[in-house]
């Protein structure tokens, strides 16, 4: 009997998640609308003369990404709760690791697209030197998103099994956002202010170690959540 | 240099500490007593 490897399971799960999302688009549209809303509100809520673009831009970017992302995180496991599809997954020899990695990949792609679409909007609202700093900025966005998604995927696997998962996820996830999002904001602020790399290394190392530690921890703990 | 006159904050802090600690202790005691009665 051919075995399904963790990798093939992960890709199958991620592909399925994204295919379903492409068909339904509910979570994607709501995340996007939310992102635009937050960007617009923050932009129009300030007096340009007193609050400069530099002061507001990093915060606006990360508030948008964080909350738009949180909106979409539950989707991955709500999908499994419908028709108890998760039981179908558990009936196959697919490992918990494979399923977790698949869900994380699905969420990363989902969030990546939301970020990709709202970034130009962000540039529209705030004239900050994005283009020259794009590579390092994208790297920081990617790192923060990985940390945020790894923890968020683990927590949403638990939360969807309670009655009020929509409210519960932000409550549990907020403290976990402090290290990655604060680092990301600090890095974004310095990047946009064209500060030398030496000023970035501290926060980059914090963000990097958060990603590595929490990705591994979430991976290992996911099995304890899946088994009944 | 004479010290700032902020004794009021100290009093407030000590009162708050007492209220919360005592409040929690009493609440615990009552919850246990209620449970004891339901448990016989």
């Amino acid at each position, binding site marked *: *009997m*051919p*075995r*399904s*490897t963790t990798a*093939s*399971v992960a890709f*199958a799960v991620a592909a*399925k998640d994204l*295919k*379903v999302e492409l*068909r*339904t688009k509910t979570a994607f549209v709501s995340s996007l609308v939310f992102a635009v809303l937050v960007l617009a509100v923050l932009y129009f809520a300030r007096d340009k003369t007193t609050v400069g673009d530099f002061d507001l831009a990093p915060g606006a970017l990360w508030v948008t990404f964080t909350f738009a992302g949180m909106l979409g995180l539950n989707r991955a496991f709500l*999908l499994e709760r*419908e*028709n*108890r*599809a998760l*039981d*179908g*997954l*558990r*009936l*196959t*020899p*697919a490992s918990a690791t494979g399923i977790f990695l698949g869900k994380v990949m699905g969420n990363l792609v989902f969030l990546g697209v939301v970020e990709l679409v709202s970034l130009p909007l962000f540039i529209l609202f705030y004239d900050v030197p994005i283009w020259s700093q794009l590579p390092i900025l994208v790297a920081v966005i990617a790192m923060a998103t990985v940390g945020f998604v790894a923890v968020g995927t683990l927590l949403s696997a638990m939360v969807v099994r309670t009655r009020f998962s929509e409210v519960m996820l932000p409550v549990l996830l907020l403290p976990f956002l402090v290290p990655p999002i604060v680092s990301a904001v600090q890095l974004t602020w310095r990047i946009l202010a064209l500060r030398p790399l030496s000023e970035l290394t501290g926060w980059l190392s914090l963000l990097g170690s958060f990603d590595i530690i929490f990705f591994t921890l979430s991976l290992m703990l996911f099995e304890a959540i899946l*088994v*009944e | 240099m004479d010290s700032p006159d902020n004794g009021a904050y100290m009093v407030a802090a000590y009162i708050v500490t007492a209220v919360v600690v005592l409040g929690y202790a009493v609440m615990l005691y009552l919850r246990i007593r209620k449970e004891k009665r339901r448990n016989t």
Partner: protein
Amino acid sequence: MPASPSIRVREVSRRFGHRWVVRKVSLDIVPGEAVMLIGGNGAGKTTLLRVLAGLLKPSKGTIELTGTVGMVAHHTMMYDALTARENLAFFARLHGVPRDEWLDHLLELLGLSHVAHERIGTFSRGMLQRLAIARSLLHRPDVLLLDEPLSGLDDAAAQVVLQVIQELKSRGASLVIATHQLVELVSVAERVGIMVQGALVALEPIEGRDAAAVVARYRELVTHAA
């Protein structure tokens, strides 16, 4: 020497919180045999099946299972937004089963070829049930667990399912079928297990008894156990 059992269940119990839902069930099933489980709602049939399937760990007792398991439950365990074929292809991939011809055969077998490319969100109860059976057969399981396989099926669809059960038995699979519809299923099962409040109060060969006789036996045990 009887064939070695494909399922060996020893004193299995399972609780949710403090409530014991399955109590000290022991049973052996040999290849090619179908056992019918009957009992009221809350008798523990579904929980026992989920424990046998490995979805729930037994709180006490042990299960030895040779070969692979397939299950059909109340819920379809599939994705409404995907088509019939996409669902099967997804689970086939997780089972590591090469797709294509085997999938088409299953869809054919269960009379779903004409709707293979439609989203299952639009399917009727009967179509979903048959697709769920197709999904449970993807990896050619040695043991198949069916929870109310005929519920919500019209006569034609029920006949298809009964045919599939016969065919699986002839190819040496073991089946456990939890059901309320005794009439149709009594003909395909060798033995009947009667569950009352989580306990297997009886496990007897059917020996050609018809549905009415089995129901009478069930009532006798239920009143006795109450």
